[in-house]
């Protein structure tokens, strides 16, 4: 099983009691709480941590993107990919990912991902996501078009990478009369495509049909298994076999020299589960963004919001794994056995988890955990 290091690049640099005054940290917490000096230092710190993860042997570095939220100030997945393409040597760069429905120019996106792939020597894994509702508000893209735009944007990016230009694109949401990108990915026919899932059965079926690597994020095991079933259904429709190589899972994880230290560090993930997901339903699911099936599945997938779970419960349910390297390797093996996955993505940083703790965790993962789970 391959391990991926992921930092959301959070900006938890304001008093929590200030954050508590607003209906949500997303969209509503005024950006006067954005501390420019701390952000400048944090970006450099987060990149240092990514670079260590590359050196110690992580199979991949996962990069994401959000907007208008202190939970993730990585506002450009492709920008971070471009930096890491140059400063890392070995690990895959897993973009998970670019938010397609809010993108107005898929051609530029195709070019940017291609450029990161070229600079990195063909290490890009290109994830495509629908985004959470917050990104819809941020971009003002109509949520009722979310799925249509996701699929059409994807189709156009793929065409940019695989069809000889120049060509014309007249779709429902995208219109380009002269498409001829002078930047194509190093990997042929194109970088592998990954898709995350949190609740939408349609996305799982779609990813299965196209044979993309599919990664549920922070859901209970039984829900992940159910989503994998939808994935298999899509794959079967297209006559594709499914191997662990196509299945991944995302959790939060940290290790340390002692159990006590790891458990103390892991407590920082509770902020990500709770306060950063707090907010009105409309922020996360604006009208029409989810299909009826998606809405129903979401209710089932989250009988309890992560925000209402204690640290102990989050650990018991494997949303957070924290322990010595041996314990962590053992838990990772358990997740692998439960889900039959080939990729485990570790959200392994929180801004209040200090740099030294984060670096030590990355180092221990490299020296002890990665070798222990590599053969699984």
């Amino acid at each position, binding site marked *: 099983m391959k391990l991926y290091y992921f930092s959301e690049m959070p900006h938890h640099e304001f008093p929590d009691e200030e954050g508590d005054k607003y209906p949500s940290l997303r969209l509503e917490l005024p950006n006067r709480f954005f501390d420019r000096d701390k952000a400048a230092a944090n970006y450099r710190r987060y990149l240092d941590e990514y670079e260590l993860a590359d050196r110690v042997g992580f199979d991949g570095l996962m990069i994401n993107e959000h907007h208008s939220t202190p939970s993730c100030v990585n506002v450009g997945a492709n920008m971070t990919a471009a930096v890491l393409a140059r400063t890392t040597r070995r690990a895959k760069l897993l973009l998970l990912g670019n938010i397609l429905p809010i993108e107005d120019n898929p051609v530029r996106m195709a070019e940017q991902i291609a450029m990161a792939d070229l600079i990195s020597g063909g290490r890009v894994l290109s994830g495509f996501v629908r985004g959470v509702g917050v990104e819809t*508000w941020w971009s*003002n893209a*109509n*949520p*009722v078009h979310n799925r249509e735009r996701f699929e059409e944007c994807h189709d156009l990016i793929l065409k940019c990478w695989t069809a000889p230009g120049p060509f014309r694109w007249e779709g429902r949401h995208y219109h380009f009369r002269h498409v001829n990108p002078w930047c194509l990915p190093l990997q042929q026919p194109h970088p592998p495509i990954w898709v995350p899932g949190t609740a939408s059965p349609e996305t799982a079926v779609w990813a299965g049909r196209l044979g993309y690597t599919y990664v549920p994020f922070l859901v209970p095991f039984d829900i992940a298994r159910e989503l994998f079933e939808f994935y298999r259904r899509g794959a079967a429709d297209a006559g594709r076999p499914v191997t662990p190589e196509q299945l991944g899972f995302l959790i939060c994880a940290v290790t340390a020299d002692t159990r006590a230290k790891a458990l103390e560090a892991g407590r920082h993930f509770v902020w990500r589960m709770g306060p950063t997901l707090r907010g*009105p*339903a*409309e*922020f996360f699911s*604006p*009208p*029409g963004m989810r299909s009826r099936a998606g809405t129903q599945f979401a209710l089932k997938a989250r009988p309890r919001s992560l925000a209402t779970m204690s640290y102990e419960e989050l650990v018991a349910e494997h949303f957070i794994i924290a322990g010595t390297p041996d314990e962590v390797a053992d838990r990772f093996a358990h997740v692998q056995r439960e889900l039959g996955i080939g990729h485990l993505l570790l959200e392994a940083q929180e801004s209040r988890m200090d740099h030294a703790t984060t670096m030590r965790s990355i180092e221990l993962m490299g020296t002890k955990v990665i070798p222990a789970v590599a053969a699984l």
Partner: protein
Amino acid sequence: MNGVDVHAWVGGRGDPLLVLHGAGGNRGWTRWVERVAERYTVWAPTHPGFGGSGDADWMEGIDDLARFYLWFVDVARLGRPHVLGHSIGGWTAAEMAVMSPGALARLVLVAPAGLKPETGEILDVFYYSPARVRELTVHDPATVPEWDALFGGAPTSAELETAARNREMAARLTWKPYMHNPRLARFLPRVTNPALIVWGREDRIVPAVCGEQYRRLLPRATLTVLEACGHLPPIEQPDTFARLVLDFLEGRTG
């Protein structure tokens, strides 16, 4: 209508009056409609994508809805009807008038969206919970005669599903530019039909200043502002509202 089933409430006697509902959906045969239907044949269709009408996922904006209803006027053989529209229905009526002023008789625009307010903003109704939006829609529920009948009970699951579908279609039609057409003001002076604009002084959804803007832009418009009234004049003050409408349609005002 070319593949889209249109549910409509129809009744009354007299010349046809086409009634176009707001984003909250078609509330049907309410008290003000009953009054007005004593003198006019009321046609109150449910917009495509709302309530009992069929889907129209291909629609992109209120201009599409306006073209749809101009066609509806032909298909239903309404001749040259009066048109009364509330909120996004008022905006739709204004767009219909701009496209084909000769096809319509008199216009009643009730707190219509459609213009960017010179001051203030149109409330982002999709950003807030339906419960919060309802609070902001009405000035004082205690004064609304039909409050219990319309909003009193806990909604059934079917009603919740309809409300979600209504919201989705409203979002489809009005998302960007939000609730207005930046070019509408350029065309309104074409509309020389007699027009009555009605607004609630306490409207917290579409600022009352938009009423002044419509009045300035429409050559034959009068504006009536109701005191102690929010965004739903026909529901909040049904008797006053029905009287205003009848006086105007019968040519006693405007």
